[in-house]
């Protein structure tokens, strides 16, 4: 409990310190990192806890963003009001899609969700009368809080940090609840979970829908921050990026989701010094991280901490923390 409160304080402290010290451009990147963090904390429910490989996460982010964008620009709703149907509608859509789709496992589920994301992009780009096609939806109103417009990058970052913190607390509470444990039980052994009275289908659909709810919140934040959305903002490459963030940060951990989101948002920027070849290096660095840190940054940190605490049992500690990852499905 104390360590979690400490981590939360450290997150808010570092976030606030950065918000007061870095350049406008870095503030913008921090905002994008925070929005990604919301999406990745959500993906952690589906993949980190329940073990569902989703390559369609960006589509749910896009669905939430489009609902908010259309309700605010066409119907003149306030963004705060429009966020409710955007988030709930996306969660419902994910539950309806998940019901038949989540019978699939492993790379079958990965390809099905990938197909879903590609299909979302095709519809968003071609259903011009509703979505505006590839021109997207522009002039989305910004957010205001207690009469103050959150139009600067810094003010928006404060909101985004608060949203990340609240959603991280909720996710942490859920992880420790009966429902979180049920998700992990399904991930580790479906048959054993079912034998113990866990309703496997319900748990999977719930994890998937919850991950979509977080993605939709990220989509709403994205729409309100950038004030313009187009199909390319939510193509399948973004889904793969979210999954990469989670794996680089450390799957199954909320801190890992946040660290991974921040790192992969800034890594390409740090590599820009290499000139034109920076994206080629980015790919190689990702591969190196996967090879040398298979459990991500948090997996590495937790493994080291466990080794220091209990030198004799360090190995079992470290492996049991990520038991779900060791087996190849």
């Amino acid at each position, binding site marked *: 409990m104390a360590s979690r409160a400490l981590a939360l304080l450290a997150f808010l402290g570092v976030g606030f310190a950065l918000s007061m010290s870095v350049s406008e451009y870095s503030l913008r990147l921090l905002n994008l990192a925070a929005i990604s963090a919301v999406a990745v904390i959500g993906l952690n429910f589906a993949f980190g806890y329940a073990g569902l490989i989703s390559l369609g996460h960006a589509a749910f982010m896009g669905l939430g963003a489009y609902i908010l964008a259309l309700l605010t620009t066409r119907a003149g709703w306030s963004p705060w009001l429009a966020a409710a149907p955007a988030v709930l509608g996306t969660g419902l859509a994910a539950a309806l899609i998940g019901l038949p*789709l989540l019978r699939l496992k492993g790379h079958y589920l990965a390809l099905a969700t990938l197909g879903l994301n590609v*299909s979302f992009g*095709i519809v968003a780009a071609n259903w011009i009368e509703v979505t505006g096609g590839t021109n997207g939806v522009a002039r989305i109103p910004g957010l205001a809080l207690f009469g103050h417009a959150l139009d600067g990058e810094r003010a928006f970052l404060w909101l985004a940090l608060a949203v990340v913190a609240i959603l991280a607390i909720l996710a942490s509470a859920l992880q420790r609840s009966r429902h979180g444990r049920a998700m992990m039980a399904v991930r580790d052994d479906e048959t054993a979970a079912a034998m113990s009275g866990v309703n496997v289908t319900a748990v999977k659909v719930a994890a998937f829908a919850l991950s979509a709810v977080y993605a939709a919140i990220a989509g709403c934040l994205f729409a309100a921050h950038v004030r313009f959305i187009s199909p390319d903002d939510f193509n399948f490459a973004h889904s793969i990026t979210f999954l990469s963030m989670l794996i680089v940060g450390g799957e199954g951990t909320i801190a890992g989701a946040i660290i991974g989101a921040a790192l992969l948002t800034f890594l390409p920027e740090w590599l820009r010094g290499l000139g034109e070849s920076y994206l080629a290096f980015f790919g190689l660095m990702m591969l190196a991280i996967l090879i040398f840190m298979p459990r991500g940054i948090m997996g590495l940190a937790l493994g080291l901490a466990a080794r220091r605490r209990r030198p004799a049992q360090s190995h079992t500690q470290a492996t049991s923390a990520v038991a779900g990852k060791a087996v190849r499905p």
Partner: protein
Amino acid sequence: MADLIQLMTNGLALGSVYALAAIGFVIVYSATGVVNFAAGQFVMVGTFAGVATLLNAGLPMPIGYAGALVAMALFGALFYLVVYLPLRASPIVTVIIGTVAIGITLQNAALLTFGSWPFRLPSPFEGMMIELAGAVVSVHALAVVVATAVMIGLLWLLLHRTVIGVAMRAVAQDVKAARLMGLRVQGLLAFSWILGAVMAGVAGLMLGPMWFADVNMGDPIALKAFAATVIGGFGSLPGAIAGGFFVGLAEVLGASYISSAYKDLIAFGVMILFLLVRPQGIFGEPIQDRG
């Protein structure tokens, strides 16, 4: 009628390319269990190997094609060493992300080497047209279909009539048993990567004159090859062929008879439908952990 013949030819030619890309993907998947998300970039690399030998080096066609395919074989071996070996014991998601990451590297390396301006890869049948039952069709498209049929025939002979092919199928069936029988498993796995890369290279060389050679061509091809693989049956070679032709025909016929905007939705819609109703595809066998 003339229109239909023309469209069918183009659809079959495009389907041939998807089928070869899917075959390359399936050869690697059956042997190594790796879901290679860089499969589309393999085809892109094949097209640009052709750009390098035929356009940049100006080699005559037979030598240029042979040179490009030798380069693809080396590329497959390199991929085996640098990507497959370090990731072979990793969970499936790590492999997916790893192959995507290396795909980003390949795409940007091609961008740095060849620039963003698209190339037009020449065909041995440049500009040649032939009349077929009243329809004018391109000779290149027909040649692509014929060449694909030949490649599939050669592959069948390799897998069923040679020692190395039988050994490859043994490895695909059961690595442990194959090793106990004294097969050199690692060498055979490396050969699977090489064969997969060469198949992708042939697809790339044939696609070059049909589309423009563009460094961003990899992703759309990968998505179509995945759809073809799922529809035909994951891990099945006849399935990859049938799926490839289905996706190619659906794209060309769908664009002209249904909607050019939504043409790609047909392939992915059918793919998702297959996953829901018949996850083993047309030719696959129902296997418990794959459902």
